[in-house]
């Protein structure tokens, strides 16, 4: 409200003072505060759909690099082989929220956590079960 200074009114000091709140508030509009994310939601839906169809190649392509590396290291083989042995709950997407470069997508049976990479949203964790105040326990996750 106070960011709007009347055109031509006031001295430089007044205009500068009025500009400060505008400088503070404007960046907040760019930060993306928990809006429903079509990007993260779409990737999660594709990931869950691929899991249901047994399309591990697509699943691996939608994993965050660090999560993929962790999976391959833990299971001692390529992602496609390792992921075929991981049972994920799947379900239907019911909601998504995005905070900066992180997102959470809920399905009817699962919670997935996503991270934004240079290639777009990717799944950082899946098969996640809540534990109250403690972090979720996830069947598939990276660092």
């Amino acid at each position: 409200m106070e960011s709007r200074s009347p055109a031509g009114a006031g001295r430089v000091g007044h205009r500068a003072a009025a500009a400060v709140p505008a400088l503070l508030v404007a960046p907040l509009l760019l930060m993306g505060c928990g809006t429903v994310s079509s990007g993260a939601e779409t990737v999660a839906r594709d990931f869950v759909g691929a899991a249901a169809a047994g399309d591990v190649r697509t699943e691996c392509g939608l994993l965050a690099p660090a999560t993929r590396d962790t999976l391959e290291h833990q299971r001692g083989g390529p992602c496609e082989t390792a992921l075929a042995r991981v049972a994920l709950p799947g379900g239907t997407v019911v909601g998504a929220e995005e905070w900066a470069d992180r997102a959470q997508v809920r399905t009817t049976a699962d919670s997935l956590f996503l991270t934004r990479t240079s290639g777009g949203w990717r799944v950082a964790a899946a098969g996640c079960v809540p534990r109250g105040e403690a972090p979720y326990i996830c069947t598939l996750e990276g660092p």
Partner: protein
Amino acid sequence: MRRFLRENALSLAFGLGFLLVLCGQAVAGHADYTQQQLTSGGEDPGFWTYVTSSSFGVDVAENWQSEYLQFFLYTIATVWLLQRGSPESKPLGEAGRESDQEQAVGRYARDDSPPAAAAGGLRTRVYSRSLGLVVGLVFLASWTAQTVAGWAAFNAEQLADRQDSVSWAGYLAEPDFWNRTLQNWQSELLAVGSFAVLAVFLRERGSPESKPVGAPHDATADTG
């Protein structure tokens, strides 16, 4: 031009210094944020993405709000609170808003007084408190900005840690918000309080923030 620079050196120097340091904060903050991202399986978001992020926003806003709170409190508190021997204090016995004659407002305004000081009524009453009002509003705006940016940054960290996000009201009850807020407030109060006392006994020759070097310790409201 040289005259303009000479007569506005204080604001220009601090304005330039502010921009340089803000850029430095952005560079260091980006490097620190990238380290954290890589540790938690993320990627370097890129410099410009970082400087428009909630993480950078909350780091900036939490310091702005505390600085403006400091000046707001000091502006208002020094109307009523005095400190014997301090150049930051008014003379002892002069606590309060003072008379119209002493403040040169209304019918006591001088020819060169601002029009708002001479106008009388609401306009003069508002103008008489305009410094505190504007600084206080900037404090409230930057503190509000801190709550919003801090909320977004906090929720991003929550999701990175595989935890649920919280509402804005929920964030205001989180230790993260109050830790960010109070750690800044305590340092501002310490700096202002200690400066008012140090200036009783110590001198900085030529500075209006100090008494003249030869002024006695109990000389109040004396600036050199």
